[in-house]
């Protein structure tokens, strides 16, 4: 029995090791993730986030002793409207403006704001320092409100990429594609059918999850459902097209899985599924903007949390449409029915 096990074990090892492409991804992916994440979240020890209202893009820590406090991340804002909204939503614990008199805005309902305020008041260079407290209120955007678009987007991404990308590769490998090739079906028809099928399924599933969550958890919905639905459609098309690019030529399921993961994981981590990328280095933000999921999530959150209109999310929808066109053009160009 052990002999047989060993024979099969060895054959499997060989198969895997000789599939250089899959092997490479198995090595490269963890490295890329490791370096990428440590770069993106190198300052994740900060416990509090405080906005500093100023015109300059850089914060000068010598300006006030508070700015030297450990474990507080200071983020500059030049637009008070934007910053106040964040305080309202508990995304900023405190907003401070240093000047002749120090002013700060605090959300009375925010526990973290309470402690950030204590830190601020105890850091004054002199007790006589004039300080002006502005109190605002506003319920926190609960993590559920914030996470829901992320989860829906992630689910959509997996479903689109694997449901199209991986399946087409499997069809190619087991000869089902070849069988279809021998019929009058064209590659365009085949691809359209795949996209449409996944599109309908993912929209149904996403609507179902959204409705359930919305009804049970009472998640926030500030904008229009039509706009949100449009974001979902345009987003799904772009993610499916991306899946098609991966599946257009690949004949090994292992390679397809590796490639899909290489796309999935960075998107899942950098597109803001689980946590906001606010304050991440510019390079990371720029990279994240190349991912369709980033635009899907930003738009969905804007609609759901901030009541953004169609016009507000139009740039993201445009970006998604352009990506879809590029992906589809590449996919159609390199598509292959058979293994050779």
């Amino acid at each position: 029995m052990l002999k047989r096990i060993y024979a099969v074990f060895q054959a499997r090892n060989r198969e895997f090791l000789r599939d250089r492409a899959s092997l490479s991804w198995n090595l490269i992916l963890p490295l890329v993730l490791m370096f990428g994440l440590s770069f993106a979240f190198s300052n994740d020890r900060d416990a509090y986030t405080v906005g500093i209202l100023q015109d300059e893009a850089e914060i000068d820590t010598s300006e006030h002793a508070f700015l030297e406090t450990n474990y507080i991340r200071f983020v500059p804002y030049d637009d008070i409207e934007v910053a106040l909204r964040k305080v309202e939503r508990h995304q900023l614990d405190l907003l401070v403006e240093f000047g002749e008199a120090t002013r700060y805005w605090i959300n009375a309902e925010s526990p973290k704001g309470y402690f950030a305020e204590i830190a601020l008041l105890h850091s004054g260079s002199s007790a006589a320092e004039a300080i002006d407290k502005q109190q605002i209120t506003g319920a926190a955007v609960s993590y559920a409100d914030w996470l829901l678009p992320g989860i829906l987007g992630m689910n959509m991404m997996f479903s689109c990429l694997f449901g199209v990308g991986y399946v087409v590769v499997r069809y190619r490998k087991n000869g089902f594609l070849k069988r279809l090739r021998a019929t009058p079906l064209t590659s365009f028809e085949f691809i359209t059918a795949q996209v449409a099928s996944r599109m309908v399924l993912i929209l149904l599933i996403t609507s179902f999850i959204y409705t359930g969550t919305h009804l049970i958890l009472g998640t926030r919905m500030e904008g229009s459902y039509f706009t949100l639905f449009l974001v979902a459609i345009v987003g799904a098309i772009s993610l499916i097209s991306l899946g098609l690019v991966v599946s257009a030529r690949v004949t090994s399921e292992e390679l397809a899985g590796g490639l899909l993961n290489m796309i999935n994981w960075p998107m899942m981590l950098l597109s803001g599924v689980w946590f906001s990328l606010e304050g991440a280095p510019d390079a990371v933000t720029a990279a994240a903007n190349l991912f369709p999921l980033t635009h899907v999530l930003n738009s969905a959150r804007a609609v759901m949390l901030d009541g953004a209109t169609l016009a507000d999310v139009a740039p993201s929808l445009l970006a998604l449409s352009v990506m879809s066109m590029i992906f589809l053009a590449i996919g159609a160009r390199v598509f292959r029915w058979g293994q050779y």
Partner: protein
Amino acid sequence: MTIALEARNLRKQYPGVLAVAGVSFAVSEGTCFGLLGPNGAGKTTTVEIIEGVASASSGEVYYYGEIAGRRFRQEAGIQFQNTALQDFITVRETIEMFRTLYERQADFDEIVEQCSLGDLLDRDNRKLSGGQRQRLLLAVALVNRPRLIFLDEPTTGLDPQARRNFWDLVQSIRAGGATILLTTHYMDEAQVLCDEIAIMDTGKIIAQGSPEKLLQQQYDGLIIELPITDLTSDLEGIEHTVLDNLGIVEVQTTDVSASLQQLEAHVSNLNQIKIRQPNLEDLFLDLTGHSLRA
């Protein structure tokens, strides 16, 4: 007779291997043409080029005198050697799906009856036996009432009973007027089903004609077969072939009684001797120097 299909000088070069080295043949309408050869002879590649699912390095395929194209796709029915069908899909759904892809459509009930799939219609593709699966794949090849049918090793892996049933099925399809291109490495299958055969080896056709004609050309008389273990001395002076892997010696003869007399001196007993007609298996062996099933 009308030529339904013609392959002209097909070549397929894979890196380092010339899989098909200039193959030409024509198939008359309403006949069954067999492409025979051992594994790796280039049969499947040749057929896939003709079917349009593989590209040729050079050469052309004509369907009723035109370069095979749109009309060919509509009118040809293809059964591949290995085709995975979709999981979780039933036999009925599979036939319906493929039927929908064609302009010409066969009657659903007719195909189901022809391929004896009536009891299996609601079964998941994954739960079919080998023979049932082959019948479904044949049904899929028939969904467009094809004028030309490709069967690529359709009975490989089937038990003898299922094979015979499959032959009956193929014969009934042929009786309906369709042209058939069959590849196989079973000589008995070719002998039963084909009007004309082409034997392929290492990418080339090495003999072509009707089975009877090919056998007549090559053989004159009968074959005497006896076990090697029954030999008591070398068969000196008698022309013979030793088939080591089968443990037998063959002697070709036009005069059986004379040959038997000659053999008697070299054989311990005559109980195991067989006298038979030469078949395509012998022909293949003589033409290529190796056995078909090796």
